[in-house]
């Protein structure tokens, strides 16, 4: 909730003015029964028609003023609600962007999207309704009680006694419903997930003849959701009737008390009518409020969900000072006894990895699936933080370099070739904001992507969302060019030439030699890494061998095995 209030603070003026104008409107409304009492006790009793006409004109004036106040209040409420949600969205987006890879893995894209869209929408509705109705209701209720006191204090006591009862009803219903709405939402998410899963996996499900099982599982989930909805409904449906009953019982009591007062001449009939009128106002207001409880409880649970994200730590921020320096001659990248375990436990993905790469060297990293190749290179730009040991880049411990600066020095080509909607140039400029056309073309030349540029009609060629209008190989070459545009001191190729054929792959490696940056090259193909200055062979997180191709052919059984497995068929 604190995040919501800090966002709302920026709209303090609106958030105060809106209820204030609501108060004015409420005053207009609260004066009405008094005027009616006068109509009865003075106008009707004395038969003075002109008095009635004047009184009614006064009522009309109240109505016009009330409309003006209400519209003003609505405007400020809308401004505060819309502004707050915009502010909240901006903060949330920034926060999501600051999450670490581990947190991104943990949260998942679709739940991030839900927070950004429907959750925030609910919060906006909640804020708007709170300013418009939630605050208006107490004003009206207490105002009506106050006016009743003004008419007759005994009658006022009846209404005053009613208020805590009504508040208890509203609060109890909200208190009981909030956690249950959360449960409903979770069950709904589950139903949605099942549906998507069954669409995406239609072939596998049919191949394994799981249609009936899936149907039964869905039936269960749908039924559980239904039961949960009915359960919440049972409680939520109580607020309206109970309020109605309480108010009417209060009316009975009020008229009864009023009767005694009229009997002794302390009150007129019109006064009793006015008191009854106040109760009627309270009733209408509370029924509106009861209908609002659903919106409010939803908004509260959404605010909590958003708050949980905003409370996340994000990546640890490192300041430029306190750099841990340990320069060793000729080293550019140095791993010292590095180990890493993914959050959530399990066996370490990497343990005790040590190696060095000199400036301009290419280090090939080879290993089987799950051997930790990709994990290893992702530790350098601190996508994941090494849990043991140290990594140095140019003599500085990477954990003491601010993430932005560190990543700015590295060109990273991910396993999955992700491009963004726009043009080829706009994608390449991700690498370097102010890259010239020449720089971009040079990067494309090295990345063997000039033909892609040509095929798309130049650097201005369109790239669809997710790069859907490009083939896998084309996307991959553009992502390599994107990393090269910034002229990085270290280039990381995270198994990113898998969609390239051998010939293009070879040309790419040759071209990279001319660039002069240090390269960490992850691959599953011996052919891609065999010409590297140094090859690191990983096996289930351990270094199984290190050296040049020739050295490893001599010393490393695993390397020999991989080499033969990939080449022998052709030699048959």
């Amino acid at each position, binding site marked *: 909730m604190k995040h919501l209030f800090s966002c709302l603070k920026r709209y303090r003026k609106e958030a105060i003015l809106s209820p204030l104008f609501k108060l004015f409107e409420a005053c207009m409304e609260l004066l009405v029964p008094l005027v009616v009492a006068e*109509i*009865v006790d003075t106008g*009707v009793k004395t038969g003075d028609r002109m008095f009635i*006409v004047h009184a*009614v004109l006064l*009522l*009309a004036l109240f*109505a*016009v003023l009330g409309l003006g106040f*209400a519209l003003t209040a609505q405007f400020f409420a*809308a401004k505060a*609600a*819309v*502004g707050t949600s*915009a502010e909240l969205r*901006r903060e949330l987006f920034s926060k999501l962007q600051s999450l670490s890879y581990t947190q*991104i893995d943990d949260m*998942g894209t679709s739940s991030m*999207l839900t927070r950004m869209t429907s959750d925030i929408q609910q919060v906006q509705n909640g804020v*708007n309704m709170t300013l418009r109705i939630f605050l208006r209701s107490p004003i009206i209720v207490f105002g009506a009680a106050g006016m009743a006191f003004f008419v007759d204090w005994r009658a006022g006591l009846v209404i005053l006694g009613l208020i805590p009862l009504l508040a208890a009803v509203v609060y109890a219903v909200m208190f009981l419903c909030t956690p249950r709405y959360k449960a409903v939402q979770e069950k709904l998410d589950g*139903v949605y997930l099942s*549906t*998507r899963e069954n669409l*995406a996996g239609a*072939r596998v499900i*049919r191949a394994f003849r799981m*249609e009936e099982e899936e149907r039964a599982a869905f039936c269960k989930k*749908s039924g559980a959701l239904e039961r949960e*909805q*009915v359960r919440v*409904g049972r409680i939520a449906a109580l607020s*309206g009737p*109970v309020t109605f*009953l309480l108010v*009417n019982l209060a009316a*009975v009591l009020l*008229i009864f008390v009023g009767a005694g007062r009229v009997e002794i001449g302390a009150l007129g*009939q019109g006064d*009793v009518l006015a008191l009854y009128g106040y109760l*009627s106002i309270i009733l*209408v207001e509370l029924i509106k409020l009861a209908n609002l409880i659903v919106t409010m409880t939803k908004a509260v649970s959404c605010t909590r969900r958003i708050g949980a994200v905003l409370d996340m730590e994000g990546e640890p921020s490192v300041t430029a000072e306190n750099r841990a320096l340990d320069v060793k001659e000729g080293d550019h990248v140095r791993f010292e006894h590095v180990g890493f375990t993914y959050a959530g436990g399990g066996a370490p993905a990497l343990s005790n990895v040590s190696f060095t790469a000199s400036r301009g060297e290419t280090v090939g990293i080879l290993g*089987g*699936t*799950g051997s930790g190749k990709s994990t290893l290179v992702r530790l350098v730009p601190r*996508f994941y933080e090494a849990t043991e040991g140290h990594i140095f880049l140019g003599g500085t411990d990477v954990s003491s370099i601010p*993430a*932005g600066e560190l*990543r*700015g020095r590295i060109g*990273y080509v991910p*396993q999955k070739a*992700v491009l*963004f*909607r726009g043009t080829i140039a706009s994608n390449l400029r*991700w690498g370097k904001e102010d890259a010239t056309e020449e720089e971009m073309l040079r990067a494309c030349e090295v990345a063997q992507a000039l033909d892609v540029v040509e095929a798309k009609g130049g650097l201005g060629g369109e790239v669809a969302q997710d790069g859907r209008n490009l*083939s896998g190989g084309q996307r991959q070459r553009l992502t390599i060019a994107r990393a090269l545009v910034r002229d990085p001191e270290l280039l990381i190729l995270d198994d990113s030439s898998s969609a390239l054929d051998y*010939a293009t792959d*070879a040309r790419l490696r040759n071209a990279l030699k001319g660039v002069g940056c240090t390269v960490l090259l992850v691959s*599953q193909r011996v052919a891609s890494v065999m010409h590297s200055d140094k090859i690191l062979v990983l096996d289930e997180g351990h270094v199984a061998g290190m050296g040049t191709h020739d050295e490893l052919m001599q010393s490393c059984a695993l390397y020999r095995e991989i080499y033969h497995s990939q080449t022998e*068929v052709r030699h048959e």
Partner: protein
Amino acid sequence: MSKSKIFREIFRYLKPYRTLFAFTVLAAVAVVAGQLLAPFFAGKAIDCLVGAGNIDKSGLTLDLIACAASAAGAVLFQWPMTLASNKIAYGVLSDLRVAAFSKLGKLPLRYIDGRAYGDVSSVIVSDAEQFSDGLILGFNQLFTGVLTILGVLGIMLAIRWEIALVVFCITPVSFFVARFISRSTYKTFKAQTEARADEAAFVDEMLAGLKVVKAFGREEENDAVFREKNEALRRASLRAVFFSSTTNPSTRFVNALVYAAVALVGGFLAISTAGMGAPFTVGNLGTFLSYANQYTKPFNEISEVAAEFQNALACAGRIFALIREEEEPSDEGLPALGRVKGEVRAEDVAFSYDKDRSLIEGFRLGVKAGMRVAIVGPTGCGKTTLVNLLMRFYDVDGGAIYVDGQDIRTVTRASLRENYGMVLQETWLKKGTVRENLMMGRTDCTEEEMVEAAKAAKAHAFIMRLPAGYDTVLGEEGVLSAGQKQLLCIARVMLCRPPMLILDEATSNIDTRTERIVQDAFAALMKGRTCFVVAHRLSTIETSDLILVMKAGKIVEQGTHRELLARGGFYSELYRAQFET
């Protein structure tokens, strides 16, 4: 789908709830009666208080008891009524969801392949919900609303037709005001929707590629772009939210005018009828004013329901269209295939996805039991089409495919598919534990069998490294690499030991070393089993008994590696381009 058809469907789904439905209708009458009688008796009670020393005590007590009883009666029915209508609404909703979901297993894959998953799942989840909210809960509001209006009019007419006439004439104005506002806010809503879609598309793309965003340190640039889009959305929303929120004050204003008019006419009437046989009393005036206060509420609700109605109907149309969609021809009554040896024959097969563009024509194939068939060709050449036909995900348009001499259309699909083990290009795992995923094809296998299969597929070692081993829950993003997912899919098939295998680029995400180990395991599994492999890898292709070469959806050549090379056709061209460096 026409409206009358939609309504027929709706009634069909409501039928099981007809008792509950009848109850809600009757209860609504009781509720409205109670709600309207309470102020009526309160008014009568006030009439008993004429002045000092002039109070009709017995009348007062009676009226107050009647008032309390009416209120209690209304409440007594209102709660069960709401529960009943909730039960109907959520029940129908769940029935619809399940009906639509069950359909997914029976629709031809053509339907699923032709649509975005998001579209179909939003029909099943959100459209169903909007329909039930809008039409069923809406009906409840509409019905009580109409009853209230009629009841109030009735009572008012019974007391004093002159004032009833005044109320009757002015109130509909609020209805028109609400209509007018909702029409004129349409434009602002449209602008808001566009701004929201624009922002959502940006957010969607950037969050999906968040890891790359961070790798390139684009957070600040993104923040700047987002800020701009967010500001545009804020402006558009402000307009839409404000204009739509003018409805309530406006109708309240009309309401206040009604109130004033009732006070005026009522006051005059009270004066002119004073001392007459049937005077218009102060209590009557109180009753009227109380009604006037509550009278516009049902009008507001009705206009809300009416606005929702079109949308709800459109949602219902989409769900019923899905539920009524034509299913795959039923294979009920057909014999099961039984366990086959694995001889596959295709004769004169013709097939196309689009009736206007022929794809496969006159395709012949003869595969003996235990042969390994490689399907090769450039990306997008339509290799999965063959898989679709073999597994009968799609039916052939002409000719026939035989397994062990049986036309596959003369046996049940389930029994055909049981004979195949399949690992597709897109690895698919369901949300659930590793164990659940592995045991998909054989829910009855033992723990030992499962572990053995996982070991054979080289998946056991990494599964044990997962936080909870075989009980680790795999989420949507998951911690598994593409290769690991594929190993799980392979283990899943290993467990089934089917006589025929279809491997759709099954091992493309696994490094060659692991692939080799896995293929050793497969080789053992494939002994005496027929195997179709969609593959790019040279090692797989060269050792196959038969190679099918595909290009642009068509099968252009078939033969062994040597035969095809000797022929010097498309295959040899492909071979040179792809594998010789």
